[in-house]
């Protein structure tokens, strides 16, 4: 296996090869597109010349072994990590996010694997972190006072919509919530604010059966609002149930993209673990 | 209703001020005055002194005895106390301007330095022209006592002090270097070691006080240079003993107990009939005096021997 980055002409890149010809390649332009992303952590090459496409309105699942580089990929897309090489286009325009704030401003909302919450702050504070609402009038413009009632109302609505939890007090600190409740808040935040793309990194990893089901329903809701979703998960049944397309990630790059209708879970597992190669893809470059 | 008074010293860890406090307490007990003592936290700490003055005023004290850490900076607070009807007496260190206090019972620190400088030059004789001098000062913040003693010594030794408000700006080649000691044995030792590394031929050591002189002596002893001339200021009993033992060549003796006792008496008198103490004839302050203590007197510099010094010493 040669993992050193080799630059190839674009038309030679294995953008899903024959697998793609089975209809996965969409005729529309991708809303989010990345080419040649590379990220090294010291000796480790977490992303190795990786490509990525997300089409409007779809649920794209990303699957792969532990350490394959899935989280690094979505961090690169969402500005949490700046890739060493490679380009990203959002709606056809090239973007390069230096921070998560820039990506968010562009409409990309992310639930990170680590949730990214401030434990001592309240649920409402956390939901509006970095995009706080200010009071109207002079109190807001001059004294920059936060509009707490409005933020709390919004947060309560969103959490109720999610129906994931019965939180009595929207002002309680996040650290007093159970792991599942926290995950719910993080998902609600992303779903509420994502205008172009919502990214979820293993949103159900620590969740129980009931709570997981709720999150899947929420993902469908977001999709129905026309917003495309990137979902990282190790749960094959969930992935095959909900995804429109599945991006299989292996050794820091996209191995191929499949449609759940065309392959069995068993095939997908075989591809992602390297037990079998998808047709037309040769692992050694 | 008893008379209450305050004593505010620069620090309460330096033996000089510890003894001053003891002298004041003894006198206060004798006269039936209630005495409360305050101090700065470190050398040069005038803010704690300001706070102490304010506390004394709030407490209704009749008089304040103060050894000011910063003679200029304390003036406003002293004025406020005097405006509130409190008698303020500067001990040991005159305020700047000197009439900022009602009275001053002090030694002249510059004079103290001057005496040991003159003594050192006379002792060395012709060798003074190419002496190697180590200057062991107090602190890098250079509080006034530090500057006065240092510059007094240099003046007495015949060295141009440049800016008399600052030590360390001299360029006379006889000065090996200035080091700070914090006025204790540890600092004296380390400073001496460092200066010896710079120039092992040092033969005159000026020290800010006797504890730092004792530290410097340890370093010299360790380097096998017991004959080096050490001069110091203070005149505490351990210091005079060190002069007697030949550790220190000469020291300028001051009289903190006397100052404190006089101060307490003055406050008691002021409380009784409102009279304020008068300065020494011809001076702007009541000079409690300074005497050079040495067993090796030299021509032209007045001195007392260690036997006399032991009689007069404090602590």
């Amino acid at each position, binding site marked *: 296996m040669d993992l050193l980055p080799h630059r190839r002409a674009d038309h030679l890149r294995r953008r899903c090869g024959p697998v793609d010809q089975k209809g996965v390649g969409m005729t529309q332009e991708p809303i989010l597109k990345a080419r040649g992303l590379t990220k090294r952590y010291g000796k480790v090459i977490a992303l190795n010349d990786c490509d990525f496409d997300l089409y409007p309105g779809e649920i794209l699942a990303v699957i792969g072994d532990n350490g394959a580089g899935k989280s690094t990929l979505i961090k690169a897309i969402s500005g949490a990590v700046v890739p060493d090489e490679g380009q990203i286009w959002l709606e056809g325009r090239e973007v390069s996010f230096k921070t998560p704030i820039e990506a968010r401003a562009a409409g990309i909302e992310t639930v990170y694997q680590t949730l990214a919450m401030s434990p001592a702050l309240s649920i409402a504070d956390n939901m509006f972190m970095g995009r706080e609402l200010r009071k109207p009038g002079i109190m807001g413009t001059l004294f920059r006072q*936060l509009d707490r009632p409005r933020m709390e109302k919004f947060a309560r609505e969103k959490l109720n919509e999610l129906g994931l939890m019965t939180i009595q007090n929207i002002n309680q600190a996040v650290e007093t919530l159970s792991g599942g409740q926290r995950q719910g808040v993080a998902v609600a935040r992303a779903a509420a604010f994502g205008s172009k793309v919502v990214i979820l990194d293993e949103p159900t990893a620590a969740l129980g059966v009931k709570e997981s089901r709720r999150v899947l329903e929420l993902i469908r809701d977001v999709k129905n609002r026309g917003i495309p979703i990137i979902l990282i998960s190790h749960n094959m049944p969930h992935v*095959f149930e909900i995804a429109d397309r599945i991006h299989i990630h292996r050794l820091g790059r996209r191995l191929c993209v499949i449609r759940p209708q065309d392959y069995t879970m068993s095939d997908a597992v075989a591809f992602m673990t390297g037990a079998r190669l998808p047709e037309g893809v040769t692992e050694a470059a | 209703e008893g008379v209450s008074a305050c004593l505010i010293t620069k620090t309460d860890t330096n033996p000089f001020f510890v003894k001053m406090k003891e002298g004041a307490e003894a006198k206060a007990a004798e006269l039936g005055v209630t005495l*409360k003592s305050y101090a700065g936290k470190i050398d040069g700490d005038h*803010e704690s002194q300001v706070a102490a003055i304010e506390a004394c005023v709030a*407490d209704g004290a009749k008089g304040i005895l103060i050894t000011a850490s910063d003679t200029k*900076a304390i003036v406003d607070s002293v004025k406020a106390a005097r405006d509130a009807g409190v008698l303020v007496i500067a001990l040991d260190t005159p305020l700047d301007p000197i009439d900022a206090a009602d009275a001053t019972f002090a030694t002249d620190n510059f004079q103290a330095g001057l005496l040991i400088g003159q003594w050192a030059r006379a002792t060395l004789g012709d060798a003074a022209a190419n002496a190697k001098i180590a200057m062991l000062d107090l602190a890098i913040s250079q509080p006034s006592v530090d500057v006065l003693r240092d510059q007094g010594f240099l003046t007495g030794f015949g060295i141009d002090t440049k800016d008399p408000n600052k030590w360390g700006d001299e360029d006379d080649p006889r000065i090996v270097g200035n080091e700070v000691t914090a006025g204790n044995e540890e600092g004296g030792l380390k400073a001496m070691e460092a200066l010896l590394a710079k120039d092992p031929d040092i033969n005159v050591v000026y020290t800010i006080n006797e504890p730092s002189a004792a530290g410097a002596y340890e370093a010299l002893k360790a380097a096998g240079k017991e004959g080096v001339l050490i001069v110091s200021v203070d005149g505490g009993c351990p210091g005079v003993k060190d002069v007697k033992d030949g550790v220190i060549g000469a020291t300028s003796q001051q009289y903190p107990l006397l100052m404190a006792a006089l101060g307490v008496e003055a406050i008691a008198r002021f409380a009784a009939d409102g009279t304020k103490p008068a300065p020494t004839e011809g001076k702007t302050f009541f000079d409690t005096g300074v005497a050079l203590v040495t067993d090796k007197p030299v021509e032209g510099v007045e001195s007392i021997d260690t036997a006399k010094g032991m009689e007069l010493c404090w602590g």
Partner: protein
Amino acid sequence: MSNDAKSVSSAYEAGLKGAAETVAEFHEEQGALKKLQHWLHQTPSAVPMIVLVVSVIVFGLLADNFFKATTLSTILQQIAIVGILGCAQTIVILTAGIDLSVGAIAVFSSVLMGQMTFRYGIPAPAAIAIGLALGSAMGALNGFLIARLKLPPFIVTLGTWQILLASNFIYSRNETIRSSDIAEKAPALQFWGQAIQPGGVKVLYAVFLMIALVAIMAYVLRNTAWGRHVYATGDDPDAAELAGVPTKRVLIQVYALAGLFCAIAGWVMIGRFGSVSPTASTGQLGNIQSITAVVIGGISLFGGRGSILGMFFGALIVGVFEMGLRLVGTDPQWTFFLIGVLIIFAVAVDQWIRKVSA
């Protein structure tokens, strides 16, 4: 074949139908004690407030002159500088940092203001503006080293403390500028030393300034987005960064603002002491004093928890203790001793309350 997947899930998720919608709920054990504990837990500045009230009462009983208006106003003016430095220290500690250089910045700024006027003849208001700007710049330097070079705040400010203190001594040439000269040539420098005298009790402008700064910062920290960002940065910097807080910028702003507060404290020092003195002990002790106030005020050194009001009470507690012990007539060393005990005691009480009311 996704039907296959659906059947897999539904194989057991069918069991979900009719599942309870609620999570576990708990009955609150009510009772006066529980309610008190809850309130104490919710109000981080309550503990120092209680300690303050108790110590005021105790000293009132022990010392005759304690409960006089002048004594109380004296306490306020004695903590004015520590209180302002405490504002600086609070915002820094809320970001899980620490600033050992606060006192040095204050003293150096006051020296700069004084020397600008007296050495270079710059008009006092301009000199003050320059002093405040330079103080902010010193703070910003700390912030830059901490946020950009990612150096630990303890070390950075330990270094700048020494650097600024030494610069202060070198630049000032050990010269104290006399009060009478300042009063004559540049009275603006002494602005905060003026007082109002309602009913004969002097209250310094400096005291009002301190209270105003505490109030403004309490508002800013609670009610603006920036304040929330300060808390979030101290709470979990990685999470805050991912959640959209520009943590580096917040850190630099916090240290620069702390520098500005220190420079304001420097200006207040001129008013309070009349003169400009490079040897002012605030340069050496300001850091420990302000940290003590912050800590007694119940602000966590790990960042993200506590309120600036607590710091204000903390400073007052120290002020009350120092004045009270002076009036009672304890030896200064015993005062140090008791302040040491107080520090540990205050934190132990705080910890205990957090534990029982958790």
